């Protein structure tokens, strides 16, 4: 330690003597580190945004949709079968241990009228558990209840987009809207959720009790009166997702009396799997950006090496003198290595500050979330130290093994 402190002092003095040169040399590292920090910040901002969107779909959510049907040899798309029922939903809730909550959903579109305003929106007939599964919060009023579902109550919960379009500024709670000419009393509004990962407006929606929705608005399917469009299943925990998926599948196969050789007449989708692919592609992107940026760090390191070689040549006599008065190989090596590392670390710190500022600017002007993580800062710091040592070693070694007589005689 008592070697390092004077070495650092000598290094700072040497760097102060040539302020402009030291500054320009550092610039390479500054730009490199700033670029890495900013790029990683942009990348992790994107990843964080995707995670946020996944959260907005619903936590630990599995979606069950009916399978396709084949009619006269024509295979219709998934979701056309009427094989999923409200009873299936109840059974999943009752019999699958890994499942926390279940909500059957029937959806459709309808024109909604309030006073002079009207608006076409998406109607979701469901049960109160839907809110918990989708992480929907009630902003004002309250949700409809299980009792409302059982009694076919004509009550509605409105998304923010619907509220804005129908009511403008006035309070919607207690007002009566007409959905396909059927009057519904507004009991609550949803807190806004923004876009889904697919870019859909998740606030452009009206929630109705599933019973009322089917009977009065969406219409009952003639083939199976109890059928539902989809069933949302929430696992008890993120780690139980695949178990919940398996249990749901097994139960539905059993309930639908499918033989082992028959295919599922429904599809179980784990949405998080879909979006984690998106997330990992964002991560690959940010790694790519960071590696491109780190090329400039290496260029900066070469700049340090260059200037250190110049410095060693310029100070040949000084090195000779130090050797004459007793500096050992490692003393000279340490001195020049510390000088190189000081250059790169000071550059690194300035680069971190600049990179942080740059990512703040990016998030301000590009409306893009950025995240300067402590890990990135630590990595940048460590990396610039490594660059200093790596590119400083050769010049330092050259200095340390100068012949003292030659060095003292050098003009």
């Amino acid at each position: 330690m008592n070697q390092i402190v004077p070495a650092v002092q000598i290094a700072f003095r040497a760097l102060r003597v040539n302020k402009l040169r030291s500054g320009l040399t550092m610039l390479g590292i500054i730009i490199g580190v700033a670029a890495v920090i900013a790029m990683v910040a942009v990348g992790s901002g994107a990843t964080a945004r995707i995670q946020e969107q996944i959260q907005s779909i619903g936590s630990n959510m599995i979606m069950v949709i009916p399978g396709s049907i084949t009619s006269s040899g024509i295979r219709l798309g998934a979701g056309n079968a009427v094989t999923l029922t409200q009873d299936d939903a109840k059974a999943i809730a009752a019999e699958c241990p890994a499942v926390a909550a279940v909500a059957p959903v029937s959806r459709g579109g309808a024109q909604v009228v309030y006073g002079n305003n009207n608006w076409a929106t998406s109607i979701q007939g469901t049960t109160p558990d839907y809110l918990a599964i989708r992480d929907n919060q009630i902003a004002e009023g309250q949700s409809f209840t299980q009792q409302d579902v059982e009694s076919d109550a004509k009550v509605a919960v409105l998304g923010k987009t619907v509220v804005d379009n129908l009511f403008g500024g006035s309070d919607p709670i207690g007002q009566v809207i007409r959905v396909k000419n059927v009057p519904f009393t507004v009991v609550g509004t949803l807190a806004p959720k923004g876009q889904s990962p697919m870019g859909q407006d998740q606030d452009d929606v009206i929630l109705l009790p599933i019973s009322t929705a089917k009977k009065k608005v969406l219409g009952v399917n003639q083939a199976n009166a109890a059928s539902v469009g989809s069933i949302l299943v929430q696992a008890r925990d993120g780690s139980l997702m695949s178990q919940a998926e398996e249990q749901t599948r097994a139960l539905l196969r059993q309930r639908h009396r499918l033989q082992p050789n028959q295919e599922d007449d429904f599809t179980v989708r784990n949405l998080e799997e879909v979006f984690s692919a998106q997330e990992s592609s964002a991560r690959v992107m940010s790694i790519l950006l960071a590696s491109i940026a780190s090329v400039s760090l290496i260029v900066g390191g070469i700049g340090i090496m260059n200037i250190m070689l110049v410095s060693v040549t310029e100070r040949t006599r000084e090195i000779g003198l130090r050797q004459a008065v007793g500096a050992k190989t490692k003393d000279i090596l340490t001195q020049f290595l510390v000088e190189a590392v000081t250059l790169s670390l000071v550059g690194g710190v300035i680069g971190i500050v600049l990179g942080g500022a740059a990512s703040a600017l990016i998030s301000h002007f590009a409306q893009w979330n950025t995240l300067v993580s402590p890990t990135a800062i630590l990595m940048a710091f460590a990396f610039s130290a490594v660059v200093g040592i790596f590119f400083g070693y050769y010049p330092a070694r050259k200095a340390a093994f100068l012949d003292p007589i030659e060095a003292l005689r050098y003009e």
Partner: protein
Amino acid sequence: MAESIEVDNLVKTYRMGEVTVQALRGVSLTIPKGAFVAIMGPSGSGKSTFMNILGCLDKPTAGSYRLDGVEIGGLNRDELAEVRNKKIGFVFQNFNLLARTSALENVELPLLYNGRANRDGKERAMEALRSVGLEGREHHHPNQLSGGQQQRVAIARALINHPQIIMADEPTGALDSRTSVEIMGIFQRLNREQGISIILVTHEPDIACYADRVIVFKDGRVKSDRTTSAPRDARTELEEMPASEIGEEEAAA
């Protein structure tokens, strides 16, 4: 007096491309502790090579050099550095002070390499500066000092580790005559009062006259080695110098 330097059949050859240059062709001599020796000779005579070997900056090709009984030829690079740090002080013709560094820090420099800088480095450096008459100038940088003052800083730096030997390579080469006498006065005082051996390389016979013994080199061999019966005494000469002949020391003061 104990023998400090024992040189036996010292040979040094350099390879310069195809040609082999024989700088030293078998030099044998001894220098006791507390001697004041001047080494003279024309350029190319091998005196600088001899000086470099005595100063442990270079190793002989053949033959033996024992400093305080230790065979120098067997030491490696770092061991040589340690010997230089502990036993030898260097004074050069062009002073070799670090620019933009105060006199005090220049004097402290050798302490940096034996871990004593932190303890009593400041006081020791001040003491060394005082002993060469530079009290009050410790914070001056080399470019604020006259040539004679710079050489005094260099001598203080050579003294800081209490060396046995001071190797002075043309120490007055860049100085005017009066300042030269002053510098020689310092060497004589250090030699007589502190018993430090002084080995002085010079090509000026006037300067060599301050030494007790003059060794002349020629063609890599010792041509003559004689003891001066009555060396010049710098102190009395300075006292006798007429006031009109003001040296740069006074002018700069």
